[in-house]
């Protein structure tokens, strides 16, 4: 008897749950709103004049805990200003080993590397998930929603003198 009433109660509670709107969505067709701070993939940025922000300082390569960033530096005159400074001649970020820890973004002295909210599409080969320099600048230019976070914003968050309203 106890079993029976308890079973009816269980049936009732599942019924009540089943009358609710489903919480899952049909993913590729419907995309849930994600947090504005979402970190998903990377982009390299250019400044207002179209000059690459990256100065090839290799800080991100050194700080990366899973060692997925590799870059080579070259010193050459800027195509915009003509002044000679460091550039990354090659920059690859292997997303397969990336743990999205945001440390490379945080240490960047020129806000060159940022995280973007748009997920990289899954690929059929391993190379598809290796972000080359072209892909990274492409990510930056394709008006992907840039993440809220670049090095300056993160630094402002951690500023010991930060004041709150």
């Amino acid at each position, binding site marked *: 008897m106890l079993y029976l009433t308890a079973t009816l109660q*269980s*049936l009732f509670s599942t019924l009540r*749950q*089943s009358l609710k*709107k489903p919480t899952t969505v049909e993913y590729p067709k419907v995309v849930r709103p994600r947090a504005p701070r979402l970190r998903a993939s990377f982009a390299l940025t250019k400044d207002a004049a179209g000059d690459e922000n990256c100065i090839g300082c290799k800080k991100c390569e050194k700080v990366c805990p899973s060692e997925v960033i590799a870059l080579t530096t070259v010193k050459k005159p800027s195509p915009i200003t003509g002044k000679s400074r460091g550039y990354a001649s090659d920059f690859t970020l292997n997303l397969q080993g990336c743990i999205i820890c945001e440390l490379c973004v945080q240490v960047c002295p020129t806000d060159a590397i940022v995280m973007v909210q748009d997920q990289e599409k899954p690929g059929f080969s391993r190379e598809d998930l290796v972000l080359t320099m072209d892909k990274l600048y492409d990510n930056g230019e394709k008006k992907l929603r840039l993440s809220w976070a670049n090095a300056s914003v993160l630094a402002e968050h951690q500023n010991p003198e930060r004041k709150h309203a």
Partner: protein
Amino acid sequence: MGHLIANAWLRGLVHGALLITVLMTAVAWISWFERKFAARVQSRLGPTMVGPAGLLQPIADAFKMFQKEDIIPRGADSLLFRLAPPLTLFLSLATAAVLPIMPGMLASDLDIGVLYALAFSGLLAFPIWVAGWSSANKYALLGGMRMVAQGISYEIPMVLCALVPVVVTGSLSLSEIVKYQAAHHWLVFWPPGIGVIAFVLFFTTALAESNRIPFDIPEAESELVAGPTTEYTAIRFGLFASAEYAHSVVSCALASALFLGGWDGPVLPPSVWMLLKTAALFVIVTWVRWSLLRLRSDQLMALCWKYLVPVSLALVLGAGAWVYVVG
């Protein structure tokens, strides 16, 4: 009673073929229904991709089942291993032969229809045990052992509960029982009280016979991986799955024929009533499955032998007394 087709053999063949076709098609979309139902209960969407609302999903599943690699484990008893799945499906479908769908339409109007149905349903533990034994896998073996213990135990209260309609109507023929109900009362209400309890117990034990939660200890996934079907792949596994569904549906149909008046009902044609009642019972089966946890094997046995068997015995006695006194 005039049958649509005069020759008994031809009638059996035609109706049997019809029944199997209907049942197997139903089983395919029942799996779709169950997935959708579970999804709604669990606040998910369920199958949506194949066809409108995922309605073609069973076909895709069937194709998938056929395409998968068929593996027979080394060390398995090859003959028994191959034999078990078709035997399971055969026994589940064979039970359906005596189901009265509408007046004059049943594959075989046996005089001992109730006995036949219960016997075949009880035999079902056997091929599943064969599957568990022949797989050369310890999980499968344990699952098979549980199946035998559970099948044999729950057969007893199930038969005793089915005896109540038999005692009241005085017939072992399913179509006679339904005709009695159409003429007098549905047996779930008659004898008052006893009928309801007998129906609930019969339904519960039928759940146990067809391995549905909360009685699915033979294939308890969280303990025995997949029980007797652990080593089965491809369409052999598919046969087991469809046999389980077929058995559930047949049990529901049996319960509605025994207690809910079978084809009896106003306005709608008889076969529709029978289908509606079976469908309603199957919805309850599914609903229970996605709402309850699983019993432990010893608790399952205790429930059967300590409560269900004595109560169902008392029900048979009560029904006998009712017939003796009231008539």
